[in-house]
């Protein structure tokens, strides 16, 4: 499947094309989400998908577009998204000390 084909195929949920979608604190003030894909087609599709661009991701997390940093790692078929946490890890009111469940808003992105 060429990149063009990938873009024009019917959208499928991220969970179908990715083999790992994980989130974790990067220090107590930042969150980082790593998405690893099964194959180059899935990766190409994800790279081209608007839903995984920084502005769309920022909207899902209630952040400003410039607060999300996106890294593409074609060598290991991965996309990394790093962003500030809403609360410092472990602060009163924080619901996810390790930031381990913060990948969920991205599972519904359709590629």
């Amino acid at each position, binding site marked *: 499947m060429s990149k063009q084909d990938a873009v024009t195929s019917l959208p499928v949920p991220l969970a179908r094309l990715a083999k790992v979608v994980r989130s*974790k*604190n*990067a*220090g*107590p*003030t*930042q969150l*980082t989400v*790593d998405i*690893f894909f099964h194959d180059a087609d899935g990766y190409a599709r994800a790279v081209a998908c608007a839903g995984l661009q920084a502005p769309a991701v920022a909207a*899902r*997390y*209630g952040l400003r577009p410039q*607060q999300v*940093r996106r*890294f593409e*790692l074609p*060598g*290991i078929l*991965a996309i*990394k998204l*790093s962003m*500030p*946490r*809403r*609360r*410092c*890890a*472990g*602060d*009163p*009111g924080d*619901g*996810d*000390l*390790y930031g381990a*469940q*913060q990948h*969920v*808003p991205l599972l*519904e992105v359709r590629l």
Partner: protein
Amino acid sequence: MTPRQTPASAGLLSAERRGRAAANEGQGVGAIGANGVNGANGASGPVGAVGRLLRSHRPGEEPLRVLSASGQLGYGIVGASLERGLARQPHFIGCDMGSIDPGPYYLGSGEMAPPEDMVRRDLALVLGAARRLNIPLLIGSAGTAGARPHLEATLELVREVAQAQGLRMRLALIESDVDPGILTRALAEGRLHPLDDGDGPLPFPSAADIEACTHRVAQCGTETFIRALTPEVDVVLAGRACDTAIFAALPEMLGYDPGLALHMAKIVECTSLCCDPGGRDAILAELWPDHFVLESMNPALRATPASVAAHALYEQADPWFVEEPGGTLDLRSARYEAEGERRTRVAGARFTPRPQPTLKIEGACHVGARAVLLAGIADPVMQQELPRALEQVEAKVRSLVALAPGQRWALHPHAYGQGAITPRPPGGAGGTGAPCELGLVLEFIASDMALARTVAAVLKQNRRQHGYPGRLSTAGNLAFPFTPSELVAGEAYGFCLYHRLDGEDPAHIFRLRIENIGLAPVPVPANREARP
């Protein structure tokens, strides 16, 4: 395993770096009786496991075998994997014991996160092994958060284990606590900076915030470990430390490339987490002058080029650059190649030193006493009304509970199913609408525990009977799992400092001292404090 490096390549190692080890070797001069090992190499002064390694290892002739025994000492080292690692005759053992991950409570309170008996068990394994093989043991971020109470509690457990096993050792301790005066002065001079461009959730601290921290630590780097690794030392026990420094310091002293040493350190500090599947078993790195090879000591775990490369992303906001006190590790040119089925060869990372070292500072302060009320809600109308009902009941409690001067409290609802964990997607989870029931955690933070309990109890009674529009369930709103329903959840802490400190010499921040267990004291070198 085929050596990929001819001894001639060792000539590339910088004379200056070899010199760092030589300079340290001079520091023990004039001391009394060696601890009996390899002391006849022409140098005076006692020779511990560190001196023995610095004198005997020649890069390029054989690999430096680095055994990472634990990434979280105190949660159970897998004994069989450790033994397999020891059978490979490692040159030194490293263990990471701490992290900022478990939250501000440990730094704030001075308590250790792992159970004490498990820490004792793991220390017994690695101390016994290191003394048996007479190789250096380096432990970083003692007692979880690496402040003074954590370091002292860990040292006490080391003493107990040494006594129980009849071990003798000379320990170098690194104290990572930072005097608040240093930080307030740095604040006034503009040398304290946010780590996230000021765009994150942590407000920039005031001098009062710095003073309010119960503990303030800096992460010491490779250069501080190098200062501690004098020849008479057998074990280094560091307060808060960069995970990498535990594993990169000895290779750098031996003349290995700092980029390569730090990259190796960055991977092995998590033990076998870089493998497929990931694990917590010991990992062995074989370091050569121009590459290193990783191998898990659990035969079921494979270090593959993909699994090792992917590990560079783990809990790291930027996959290419890793900031260390002494400079920046650049992973863009790192290469990963398979060496057989379950080993991976890594090369290519570069290290750029910065002119002035920077330090990462951590501080936590007491933010109140915590009480918790747990409840479930099955009524669909109540679920819909929840946010407004909570506001109304909280206002009612504020009118009922009188506060003395200085007293304060706050309520933090965790409404599971309504965005307690992640922002609530429009239209409900998966577009299916509201969940069929809802868990509710109400977190009260008050200036003291009595007030936290009071407001939790008063809110509970009012919340049970609160009337709301559309209410059918007029006999009660909440399903409580426990009695008493309000749980005392201890003291609460918050991070106050997670910042970059410029313009301070690490040698002034991190204090070193020597602790002798079963060995006679040696004269105190110029760069150390005498133990009182």
